[in-house]
């Protein structure tokens, strides 16, 4: 396949150039620069997509799940850039996309099992017996991760916007952002979506834990991947409890959402009951 020659570096470099152009845009805004940045963003996304299709890294591996998460966020970046042309959208989203692709390289490229079709490799897990449930478990946790990432981005933007308002500065036209109300709503929706997905994903994970323990794939409750996922769930539960039980809003919710992000990275970094690990 001609796409086999696409490497992680191809799209990582495209995202890096797009980000660099966005940063230059902050200093010296020019419409052509924004277009170029978007062009590189699209090129990166295209290469990213072709890489996922051609290579089909297992979703259940840290490498595959991180790259897939970055791919969804790349869509989020492109969608936002097209719909909010005047906003400094890329300045916030692209570092996360680029960061996640770099994070994936830390895990190393797993052996994909040549010969299978991309979707067979993509959904491959070690235990054949548990396959459908494991795939569902991984997919739900991955979608919840998207929610965590979007919540994180909304929170970062919220805190910057709130800081700007606190200082009573008018928005810099080079770095326009969404309103506080919109950012808060984005954060709320992301959390509302992520929490049920995370909960169901975790319940499936707990149900599968006994089988995992028997087959030696998981140590038990003290396993780091179980603890990190539980930690993430707990932070979410506290967030929602404060949000709806005590009507805590604004900066405090944004700050707490920021805490959830390192926990997500930890969860992504811990191995899963598969060939290479996963969320």
């Amino acid at each position, binding site marked *: 396949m001609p796409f086999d020659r696409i490497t992680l570096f191809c799209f990582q470099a495209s995202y890096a150039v797009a980000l660099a152009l966005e940063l230059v845009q902050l200093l010296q805004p020019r419409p052509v620069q924004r277009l170029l940045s978007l062009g590189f963003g699209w090129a990166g996304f295209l290469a990213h997509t072709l890489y996922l299709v051609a290579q089909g890294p297992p979703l259940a591996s840290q490498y595959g799940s991180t790259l897939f998460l970055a791919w969804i966020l790349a869509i989020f970046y492109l969608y936002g850039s097209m719909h909010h042309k005047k906003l400094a959208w890329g300045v916030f989203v692209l570092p996360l996309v680029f960061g996640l692709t770099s994070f994936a390289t830390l895990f190393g490229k797993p052996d994909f099992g040549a010969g299978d079709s991309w979707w067979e490799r993509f959904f491959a897990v070690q235990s054949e017996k548990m396959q459908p449930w494991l795939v569902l478990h991984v997919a739900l946790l991955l979608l919840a991760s998207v929610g965590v990432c979007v919540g994180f981005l909304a929170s970062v933007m919220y805190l910057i916007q709130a800081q700007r308002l*606190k200082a009573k500065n008018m928005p810099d036209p080079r770095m326009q952002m969404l*309103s*506080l*109300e919109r950012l808060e709503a984005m954060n709320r929706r992301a959390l509302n979506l992520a929490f049920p997905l995370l909960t169901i994903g975790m319940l499936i994970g707990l149900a599968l834990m006994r089988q995992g323990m028997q087959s030696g794939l998981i140590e038990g409750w003290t396993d780091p991947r179980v603890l990190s996922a539980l930690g993430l769930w707990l932070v979410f539960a506290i967030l929602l409890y404060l949000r709806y039980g005590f009507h805590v809003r604004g900066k405090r919710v944004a700050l707490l959402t920021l805490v959830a992000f390192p926990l997500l990275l930890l969860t992504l970094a811990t191995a899963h009951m598969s060939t290479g690990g996963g969320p």
Partner: protein
Amino acid sequence: MRVIVIGCSFRRTPVALRERLAFDAAKLTTALDELGARYGCEAVILSTCNRVELYLAQEATQPPLDAVMIAEFLSEIHRVPSQEVQPHLYERQQQEAVRHLFRVAASLDSLIVGEGQIAGQVKQAYETAQARSSAGPLLHALFQNARLVAKRVRRETGIARGHVSVSSVAVDYVRQVFDHFHDKTILVIGAGKMGELTLRHLRHLHPLRILVTNRSPEKANAVAQGCAGIPVPWDALDDALSQADIVLSTTGAPEPIMSRSRFNKLISRRAGGPIVILDIAVPRDFDPDIHDGDRTCLFNIDDLTRIREQTLRERQQHIAPAEAIVEQEAAKFLKNWTRRRNGPIIARLNSDLEAKRQAIVRQLFSRLNGQLGEADRKYIEGAFRLLQNQFLHGPISALTEETHADTPGGSHTLLEALRKLFRLQE
């Protein structure tokens, strides 16, 4: 053709005289018709609160219009003695006039540099002239270009960035906090004149409802009637505040009406999102310490004025690049106009000589038939073409030089001379 602008502006004409020289719709149409009839020129009149300018275009052969003639014309139209008018009039011709219009349209000559209203006023002036058929080919081209120049300046520089009225700045702040307004409640406290314009701007956001409270119920009712709001008793201020998303406070109270402790008590009753308070009263109505930039955003008159001044300062930095665009566009316009005016004559001259050359060469070749090789034929043809080009070079260069030298009537005389010398048909 010659383009002239004669007029007065806020720069050296007092408002009292500008008011007397301003054109209403009836006077404008009369003046446009009269200018054409009396002086046989194209005319566009730009009349705003800051300037009255007559843009005129006439044939180079006509006696040039000047400030004295236009002062008399204005004195007849407005019944103001011409001696009063004339010292205030300025006069710009050709490139200067083109540059002047482009600067005006791009808002570089405005009282508040970068304000957006003038571009619309220039467009309106041109459309009125179009409707009266007083704008001819030169003024059509000039005003259409002015619109494009204004757009380019706004697009490529930051001259129009930000808002410079306190009420617009207030709305900008509100937009940083809220995304939509159809579910928002605006509370107006007091009935100060200062708040009227801001309230008008806020109403354009189409809020869910407007509550109005005042110590005097009559005043509250009057303001509520004016803005389709709901009057609220002064005693219910705390309740109204707990329901409001945007507060516009403009009382004349000598002391702050809302202390931090009182505000904290009522804010705890709020279930909704953040609250934005625009305190444009002097002295201030709200304790400035309630501002946290998160749940409560308080902006007082000093904050709004500071932003306005900051925006004006920033605009100053964009004047030089904007002037460079105007300069470039003015030169481009004149070059294009010259080409457009001289083009038909040059083309006619060219085609006439081309036809003559071809006829002579054809005749020569038929006479020497059989005696010339292909190379000889090409050489002879090339020699005649060279002669034609050298012959044309002189008149075309002279015409271009004369146009750029801008001698009154110079290029027109040359054009006429070319027509007669070469017997070019119209």
